[in-house]
C-alpha cells in the first residue's frame, strides 16, 4: 500500500460500547498506533476475541475480525494462524475470558508458541456481567456474588505464561498509552507467542482502580531470555511493574507445510495417489 496510514485509519467507524473513562479506550489507541507504526496492511490482520467488554475491541479496528465466544478466542486464533500463516493474528480479551473460562487455552497456546499477539485487558473484574471476581481479583474484594470476598488468592498471569512456555511476556498500563504502544510494537515484531497483560481500570465496577496510575512503576527495564531470572523478577514485583520481562527465541509451532492452498484446485493426482492405497 502506498498511502501512509495514520493510527486513526486503523479505527473502524463503530462507536465503542465502553463506559466513559474505561481503560479499554487507551488500549485501542495504543494498538492502532502500533499497527500504523509497523505499517501492517489492514486486510492482513486477523483480530480475534472472546466475550466481555474488552472482547468487543476487534469491531473497533478496521481489519478482519472475529468476535467469538467466551474464553475461546485463543483457540479460534490458533486455527486461523495455522491455516493462514501469512496473516498477522492478534487476540484480545479480558481477565475473566482469558484466565478463567479460557484458562486451559491460555496454557496451551503459550506452550504451542505460535506467532501471534495476545493482549489481556486486565481490570481484575468481570465488567460485562456487572462486577464479579476474576482470577486476578484480590480475595477480600466484596461484591454481590461473593459478599465476603472470593476468598481465593489471585494468580499471576506473567508467571503462568512463563511456566507454560510463552516466548514474549510483558505488562503495560492503559494509563500510559505511549509506553504500552512501544511494548505492543515489540510484541508484534516478536516471532512467537507474545503475551501482554495490560492493566486497564474498570471505572464502573472498580472505581478505586483509578488510583493505579499512582501505583504503577517501571520494573522490567531489559527483557531477559533466562526463565529463572524472569521468574525471579515476576515474583519480586508487586504486580504493578511495567515493561517487557522475558523474550526468547523458542521454536514456533506451525503446520508442516506453510501456505495452505486456498483454492480448491489442488492436485487431483495427489488425491488419486491417496485413493490408490485402498485398491486391492
Amino acid at each position, binding site marked *: 500500500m502506498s498511502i501512509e496510514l495514520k493510527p486513526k485509519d486503523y479505527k473502524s467507524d463503530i462507536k465503542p460500547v465502553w463506559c466513559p473513562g474505561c481503560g479499554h479506550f487507551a488500549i485501542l489507541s495504543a494498538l492502532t498506533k502500533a499497527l500504523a507504526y509497523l505499517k501492517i496492511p489492514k486486510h492482513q490482520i486477523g483480530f480475534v476475541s472472546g466475550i466481555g467488554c474488552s472482547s468487543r475491541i476487534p469491531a473497533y479496528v478496521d481489519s478482519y475480525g472475529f468476535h467469538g465466544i467466551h474464553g475461546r478466542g485463543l483457540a479460534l486464533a490458533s*486455527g486461523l494462524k*495455522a491455516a493462514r500463516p501469512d496473516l498477522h493474528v492478534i487476540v484480545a480479551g479480558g481477565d475473566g475470558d482469558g484466565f478463567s473460562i479460557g484458562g486451559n487455552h491460555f496454557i496451551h497456546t503459550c506452550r504451542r508458541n505460535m506467532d501471534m499477539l495476545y493482549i489481556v485487558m486486565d481490570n481484575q473484574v468481570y465488567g460485562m456481567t456487572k462486577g464479579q471476581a476474576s482470577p486476578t481479583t484480590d480475595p477480600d474484594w466484596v461484591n454481590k456474588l461473593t459478599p465476603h470476598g472470593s476468598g481465593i488468592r489471585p494468580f499471576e498471569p506473567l508467571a503462568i505464561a512463563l511456566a507454560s512456555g510463552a516466548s514474549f511476556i510483558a505488562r503495560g498500563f492503559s494509563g500510559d498509552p505511549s509506553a504500552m504502544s512501544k511494548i505492543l510494537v515489540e510484541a508484534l515484531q516478536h516471532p512467537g507467542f507474545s503475551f501482554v497483560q495490560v492493566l486497564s481500570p474498570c471505572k464502573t465496577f472498580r472505581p478505586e482502580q483509578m488510583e493505579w496510575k499512582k501505583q504503577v512503576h517501571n520494573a522490567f527495564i531489559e527483557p531477559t531470555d533466562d526463565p529463572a531470572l524472569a521468574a525471579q523478577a515476576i515474583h519480586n514485583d508487586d504486580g504493578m511493574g511495567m515493561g517487557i520481562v522475558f523474550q526468547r527465541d523458542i521454536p514456533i509451532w506451525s503446520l508442516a507445510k506453510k501456505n495452505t492452498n486456498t483454492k480448491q484446485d489442488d492436485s487431483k493426482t495427489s488425491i488419486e495417489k491417496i485413493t490408490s492405497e485402498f485398491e486391492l
Partner: protein
Amino acid sequence: MSSSSFSVAVTGAGGSGAVTTGLILLEAMAQHGFYGFMLRSSGPQIRGGESAVMMRFDTGEVLAANNQFDYLLALDWFNIERFIDEIPLDKNSLVIFDLSAGEIPEVLSQSNAQVVGFDLKKMAKSIQGGRVNMIALGLLANTFSLSDQSIDRAVNKILGRKGIKIVETSIACVIHGMNEHKKSNLWPVKIPTGNLSTKTTRWSITGNEACGLGALYAGVRFVGAYPITPATEILEWMSPRLEKLGGGLLQAEDELASINMIIGSSFGGIPSLTATSGPGLSLMLEGIGLAISSETPVVVVNVSRGGPSTGIPTKSEQSDLNIALYGCHGDAPHLVVAPLNISDAVFTTYWATCLAEQLQTAAIVLSDQFIGQSRAIINNPTIEDIKCRRITADNAQENYQRYKILDSGVSPMSIPGTPGCMYTADGLEHNPKGTPSSMSIDHLTQLEKRNNKLLKFDYGEQWSDISGKGDIILITWGSSSAMVKEAAQQLKKQSYSIKTIAIRLLMPLQVDLLSAALKDAKKVIVIEQNQGKQLFHYLHSQNSLPIDAYSFARSGPLPFRPDEIANYIEVIL
C-alpha cells in the same frame, strides 16, 4: 439372507491375534474375488484385552450385519461370554477351538452349535515360531478353498511391515492348517454359489477412512483434532494425507478448542473439519452455534458410540440424533447428514462438506462405530461433482455487507487478505454489516436469513436412498439402513411389497419429498438403534408420519440383525 453369504467370527485374548487373523482372512477372501465386511469389537482394556472380529463374505457387496454365524474360530476361551451376545450361533454353526484351551464354556454348549476341538497348539509347534491363529486361519482358508496365492498376498499385505521372517512363518502356518483340513476331512469345503468378482478396482476401506477421504475430496485442508474413540482413526488417517495436500492438522487441548480452531481456519478461507464422538460433541455445541450464527462453514463428524456420558466407547449406537438436531441453544438451523454404510460414508462426508461450504453453516455428519471401525471390500465409489462451493467476495467493495440479505440467504463471504471488504464476524446478533445489534428487526431478518438459506436450497435426490416399491414402508437412517434393506429383501421373498426409505439428510428434513414418498403407505415403520425413538419423534414433530406409524427402536450396542427386523415386521403385519 443371500444364499451366497457366509460369516465368520474370530475371538481371542489380547495378543492371540484375533484382529490380525480377521484382517488377513478379509484380504485373502478379497484377493480371491469375494466381497466382505468386518466389524470389530473389543473389551474395555486399552491393550491386551480380549477382542473379536465379526466377518461376513459374499459374492456381491455386503455391508450389513448377518443373522447368524457359520463359523466361530475361538483362539482361546478368554472372556468368551463377553462376546457371545454379539455372535449369534445356531445348530448350523461350527465352533472351531483349540483343545489346549480347556473345557468348552457353558455359554457355548447352550447354543446348539457343533463344536470341533483341534490341537492347534501342537500343530503350531511343528513350525518354528508358529502361531495358533495362523494355523486356525489355514483351516478356514481351505474351507473356503482359497488359493495359496491369495494367502501369500494377503499375509504380505497385512504383516509385511513386520519383516520377512514373520511373513514366511505365518504363510507356512496357514498352509499347514490348510493341509491339515484337506487331510482330515473334518468339515466340508463350502464353495459359495455365485460368481466371484474379477474387478481389480475394488477397495478395502474402513468407514472412518471413508469419511476422511470424502472430506479430502471436497477440499478439506485443515483439521482441528482431539482424540476420542471411535473417531480417532479419522483424525489419524487424515493427518499425514492433509500434509501431502498442502494442509494440516492441529492437535487441540480439548474439544472446546478443536471446534473453535476450525471456525478460525474456515474464517481464514480453508474448508475445515473435526471428528469426535458423543462426549466431544457435547463440548462442541457452543462452538457449533457460533459457526451457525457467524455463518462460518464447518464440518463435524460424530462417530457415535453408546451413551450417555462416557457410555460404551467401543460399541455402536444411534443415540446422538437428538443432540445433533437439537443440541444448540437458540434457533440454530444447520445441516445434519448420516452415511448409510461404509461405502456411502465417502459420498456423504463429501456432500456434507460441499453443503456446509455452499450454505455457510455447520454440518454434522452422524456416523457411528458400526460404520466407522468396520472394514469392507467395496466397489470403488465414484463421486460425482456436486458443484457446491463457498461464495466469496473477491473484490474491494464500497460498504461491504457480510450478512447482506439476498434471495438465496447466502451472502458472499470475504476472506482475510482481501483488501477493501473487511468485516468482523460475530456470534452476537448483528445487522447485515456484521455490527452487533439487539434490535428486533435485525434479529428477525438474520434468523430468517439463516433459516431460509437452508430451506430454499435444492438438495436433489440425495436427501434419501429409496429402494423397493410397496405400501409397507420402512423408514430408517445411518448404519441401520443396511440391515433394514436386507430385512426388506427377506420379506419380499415372502411376497410382501416393501419400500425402504433411508434418510441421508436429517436436517433440514425434506418434508414434502418425504410425504410424497409416503403417499400410498398402508403401514409405516420407523427403525432405529436407540432407546428413545429419536427419529420417530422427530418425524412426528415435523408432521411427517401418519398417526398410526410404528416405531421399532432399541438401544445398542448389539447391531440389528436382518431377521430381527423382519420378525418384528411380520408380527405387526
